[in-house]
């Protein structure tokens, strides 16, 4: 005979990842670092966005990149040309970065550089519109890219990603004239689920929207710096 018992756990499934993310963020805060988690589907233009960002801001800020890629270091190699520390994390078969992998990246970084000298860590997540949305890594803000070739309906189909984003870049807008795409429709679809998100149409090729994006990054870093100075 056996009797059945019940134990209420009420523990979030992502509890361990969340704890790790909070821990990473505490480190960033102590060092006065802003961390941005850059996410999109594969090929939306994350790496070229980071290239443009490093080219424009690496004199003003000390920047490091944590680069998530499933198998290769190709993206990391592209970014190392900008003379900033780039930590490549091969996620293997995993389709997203989690807080533990990013913690490993921070440790690697801290071996080579004094983290309190850094202003900004850009995390380039694995290209995927699903999983990265659920796994915080310790970022202060989430940046999502949606390229115009992906279609207007993506915010409706992958709502969690677009709902979580603090800044949405509509990428490759230089291609919009060649496509049957309605940029206003994209914005409206995003606003349905995330009315307060900052939306910036951008083209890494023509430079359109880059200034607005850089200004957004600068405002994030400066806000964090002044917060760190006041503590």
């Amino acid at each position, binding site marked *: *005979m*056996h*009797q*059945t*018992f*019940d*134990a*209420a*756990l*009420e*523990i*979030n*499934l*992502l*509890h*361990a*990842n969340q704890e790790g993310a909070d821990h990473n963020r505490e480190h960033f805060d102590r060092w006065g670092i802003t961390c941005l988690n850059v996410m999109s589907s594969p090929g939306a233009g994350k790496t070229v966005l980071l290239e443009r960002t490093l080219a424009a801001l690496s004199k003003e800020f000390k920047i490091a990149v944590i680069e998530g890629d499933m198998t290769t270091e190709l993206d990391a190699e592209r970014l190392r040309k900008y003379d900033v520390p780039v930590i490549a994390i091969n996620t293997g*078969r*995993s*389709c*997203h970065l*989690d807080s533990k992998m990013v913690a490993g990246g921070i440790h690697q970084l801290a071996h080579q550089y004094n983290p309190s000298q850094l202003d900004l860590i850009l995390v380039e997540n694995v290209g995927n519109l*699903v*999983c990265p*949305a*659920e*796994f915080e890594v310790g970022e202060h803000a989430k940046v999502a890219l949606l390229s115009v070739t992906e279609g207007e309906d993506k915010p*409706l*189909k992958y*709502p*969690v990603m677009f709902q979580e984003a603090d800044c949405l870049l509509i990428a490759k807008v230089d291609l919009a004239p060649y496509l049957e795409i309605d940029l206003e429709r994209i914005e409206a679809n995003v*606003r*349905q*689920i*995330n*009315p307060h998100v900052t939306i910036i149409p951008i083209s890494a090729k023509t430079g359109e929207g880059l200034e607005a994006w850089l200004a957004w990054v600068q405002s994030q870093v400066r806000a964090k710096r002044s917060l760190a100075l006041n503590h």
Partner: protein
Amino acid sequence: MHETDMTKALIVTVRNWWEEQPERPKISHIHLVVGQFTCVEPASLQFAFEVQTCNTFLDGAKLVIREIPLIAFCHRCQQEYRPEIGIQYACPECRSPMEDIRSGRELKIDRIEYNYLTDNSNLKSNHAPNL
């Protein structure tokens, strides 16, 4: 396939609980609550759970998943509504954006059912531990 990672996290959490129990009970069911506005596919979780628990302390345990619908509250209309996932999230009455999610983001281990395998004369415990 982040369900694989989530299942790993689930097993670690349950194992921690189980190792705290002095008599290491037999876990028969794990009850999960999964909101529809998450990136989790219940069928994938079930599959990953079966594969990962094979020949472990959870061998034979059932994963019971209760899905929670996406419900939002429209402040302008002062009423709840059910957004149509993938189609329309704004309020069907006034088109206000979905700002206040009341349910659908849940992703948690709700409770565990367990028992002590004993013979008739020797029932070892009759109360659930206080968690």
